[in-house]
């Protein structure tokens, strides 16, 4: 079987049966990365010794007659925001350039326990702040469908690694759309689970109340399987939800009778007409599959971006305070005192977008402004959550575009942070509400750029979200890998 056309489910079955060794799979994808990645730059760190040692451990386990996990030998790309023990974890920032965590994130441990094989650490916007991966301190990632364009962000490296088949599963994090938006722009599947579904322990924090880890894959089934592996309560994360994990793969059935809500606010000004056409076609497909399409309203949608940039910058200004040059990471040397050490380290260590958000966050939390911004932001956040609660009284899932436009050109929005922020206009609300969302490919623009369709579900109802995504995928089957790479 051609490994380029294989799914993660295929690979794990073949590795488990001995049809192919984990080492052969790893070798294949390492070679693929070596050939393709110079054009894409999806990875910040590839360590063949590390990858092959993980693959050998899987093969040894099989040789010893032990049963293999659900991701046996599956090549997985990890966003460089996930702590990997002894392996560089930079978060796309100069300030953590040589940082090797002495611990692993819970998500990484769970993937290892499922016998996954890590092929590298994927590029990202610095500290997950951005929508294009251009904010990486180590250079941008290219969109595999058009290398002059951005792959989306902040998990752009993870999404591009799937579209270019340098991995079969990738892990990202999503604070305001950072999984779903790049998945849409790279034509792959990406899911943000319910807040608290996946442990955040060892995920370098951007905005703690919004951050959530989730999987990317070329298809819904691989996504579902990976989500089953990484979900669950973790004693080390007090915000992880103490609820059983569904077998998401088994839930992938038909959608007959399912009620799908379509928020009218998601088809407003700023939505590209081609994107709108693809999404409306998708809704017709779902109708054809027996689902009922219902218009719903999410009246506070227009406040989501503003609310998000209050909450996330406030938390980020505090979360990123620890990068000060004192205890670990980059330090500007030769400073005369501690204040200079702090300011020169942070001035040189952080990029412009990170500094912008730290300043915004420091401002909204400062005495005299706290109530006007932060307290009000939390109130609006509750209203946005209420919008979804109300809508879900009459529908099972909500569908709409993942992004307002397809992938834009590199450099196009670098000087215009506000237009960059609006890339996440359809994805931010789910983070504020804590509900799950997925982006699946729903066709292409006339220029051949992928378009994403988003499904959002009730808290902890990943099952239904994955079910409708799988049914739609089966009915359409759009290509998820560009032909001429």
């Amino acid at each position, binding site marked *: 079987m051609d490994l380029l056309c294989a799914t993660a489910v295929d690979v794990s079955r073949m590795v488990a049966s001995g049809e192919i060794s984990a080492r052969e799979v790893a070798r294949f994808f390492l070679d693929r990365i070596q050939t393709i990645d110079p054009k894409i730059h999806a990875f910040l760190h590839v360590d063949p010794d590390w990858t092959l040692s993980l693959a050998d451990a899987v093969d040894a386990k099989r040789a010893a007659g032990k049963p293999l996990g659900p991701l046996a030998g599956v090549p997985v790309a990890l966003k460089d925001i996930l*702590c990997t023990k002894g392996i560089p974890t930079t978060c796309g920032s100069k300030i953590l350039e040589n*940082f090797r965590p002495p611990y692993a994130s819970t998500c990484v441990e769970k993937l290892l326990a499922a016998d996954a094989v890590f092929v590298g650490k994927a590029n990202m916007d610095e500290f997950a702040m951005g929508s294009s991966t251009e904010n990486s301190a180590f250079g941008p990632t290219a969109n595999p469908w058009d290398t002059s364009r951005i792959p989306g962000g902040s998990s752009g490296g993870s999404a591009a690694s799937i579209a270019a088949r340098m991995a079969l599963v990738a892990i990202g994090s999503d604070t305001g759309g950072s999984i779903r938006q790049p998945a849409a722009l790279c034509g792959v599947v990406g899911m943000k689970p319910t807040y608290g579904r996946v442990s*955040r322990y060892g*995920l370098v924090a951007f*905005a*703690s109340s919004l951050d959530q880890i989730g999987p990317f894959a070329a298809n819904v089934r691989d996504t579902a399987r990976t989500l089953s592996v990484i979900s669950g309560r973790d004693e080390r994360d007090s*915000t992880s939800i103490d609820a059983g994990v569904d077998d998401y793969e088994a839930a992938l059935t038909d959608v007959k009778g399912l009620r799908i809500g379509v928020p009218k606010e998601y088809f407003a000004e700023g939505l590209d007409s081609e994107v709108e056409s693809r999404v409306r076609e998708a809704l017709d497909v779902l109708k054809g599959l027996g689902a009922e399409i219902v218009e719903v309203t999410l009246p506070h949608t227009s406040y989501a971006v503003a609310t998000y940039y209050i909450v996330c910058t406030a938390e980020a200004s505090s979360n990123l*305070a620890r990068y000060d040059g004192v205890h670990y990471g980059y330090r500007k040397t030769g400073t005369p005192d501690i204040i200079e050490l702090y300011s020169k380290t942070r001035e040189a260590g952080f990029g412009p977008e990170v500094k912008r958000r730290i300043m915004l966050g420091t401002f909204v939390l400062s005495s005299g402004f*706290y109530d006007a911004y932060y307290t009000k932001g939390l109130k609006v956040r509750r209203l946005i959550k209420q919008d979804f609660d109300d809508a879900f009284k009459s529908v099972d899932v909500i569908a709409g575009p993942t992004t307002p436009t397809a992938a834009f050109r590199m450099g196009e929005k670098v000087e215009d942070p506000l237009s960059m922020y609006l890339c996440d206009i359809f994805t931010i609300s789910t983070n504020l509400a804590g509900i799950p969302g997925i982006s699946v490919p729903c066709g292409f623009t006339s220029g051949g750029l992928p378009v994403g369709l988003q499904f959002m579900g009730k808290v902890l109802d990943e099952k239904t979200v994955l079910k409708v995504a799988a049914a739609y995928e089966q009915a359409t089957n759009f290509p998820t890998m560009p032909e001429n790479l």
Partner: protein
Amino acid sequence: MPVTDYDIVIGLEAHAHLLTRTKMFCSCRTTFGAEANSQTCPVCIGMPGVLPVINRKALMLALRSAVAFKCEIPATMRFDRKNYYYPDLPKNYQISQNYTPLGVKGFVEIETSKGRKKIGLDNIHLEEDAGKLLHPEGSGAVYSQVDLNRAGTPLLEIVTRPDMSDLDEVEAYMETLRRTLEALEISDCKMQEGSLRFEASVSLKPLGAAELGNRVEVKNLNSVRAVLNALAYEIDRQAAALDARERIDRETRLWNEELSRTERMRSKEEAQDYRYFPEPDLGPIVVLDEWLQEISASLQELPNERKWRFEDEYALPSYDAGVLTQKRAIADYFEAAVAAGRAEVSDPARLAKVVSNWVMGQVLKELNDRKVEITDFPVTPERLAGLVTLIESGKISNTIAQQLLPIMIETGEDAGRIAEQRGMLQVSDTAEIEKLMDEVLAANPKPVADYRSGKKAVFGFLVGQAMRQTKGKANPQVVAEILTKKLEN
């Protein structure tokens, strides 16, 4: 104007390390004095991506203090982040409680020579301690070192209202707080190890004035003495300034132990903006009724309350009640002995006072001499009650009782049996005593003649002679009665 022309207004903030084995948000040990940075992990040194997990024991101890000090406890509480940069604070924020402290509006009741007084508490909250900076000795050092062993140690902060008006009250408050936290096993309160620390705020206003003066906060107070000295200095300084019609600035000052003075650290304008916001890594804590019921049920009486009860219930002098309630085990011993003596001794106040005298005197002396704890003392409260009963029923004299106690300690026997075996029981047989009295009168003709001629003062001498004759075993009351009868005849 002298200081006495001003009202003094003082508030205190206490920081107490909680008696937990592990830190507030990770499982590192809290042992004092370990090698620098040997008790650290990614969580308490603030590495990227790690998360805090609440130490349940610390939460319960903190709630215990809130219940003990009669605070209102919110149904739901959160932790908040206090943001500021300092190299001993690895995350550059401290997890604390600002918006929903775990206790508000309680009080600590103190006692001074002026009587009892309730010192109001503004709030009690839970937080994590910072690490320690070590500055190398000698000049020319261009670096400092950080020891993060203490970083993340559970810390209880108890903030009073500005309710104290003199240094006696401040001292009584600190002592009461220390005794209470120790007795309830909330903190070991070792000030020399930094497990109990104070900060003070003080202002002066003309006597009776309604408006408070500008408050000065004083930090770097490492002992009870330092708190009192710094406040005394600060009160004088402020009074002198006000006399000279100078403004007192609202500011923070540091106590300089060496020079015995306070020095300006920062003004109000320079005060930091801590940018408090709810800690998003920890969800809200719903305080369960069953927790509070459990705490209330297990909560013993506070040392001061017990002292005051001893005064009321046993009619003991304040001094006695204070000594007896200094240590919980001593107070328990006292109460058990009184309870055991009740059946035999009809006057409860007298019983309590006699037992109190014994416990404060002989018992504490023996404990001290023998270096044993009262819980290991061979003379149980019941045995002590037995001894007291023998005295009160006239079976032995006080003098004999003093001799009996060491024998009870050595042999572990009860007082009655020892007294009987060793012939130490008091003689109350009037016939026998009458015979002895006749001998005494015959042997002392002069005092007898003096008495009969009106010099009644010699009576005491004659009783003493009679007691000596009986080696202290005769019942002094019977002796006195018979002697009177014989002398009057």
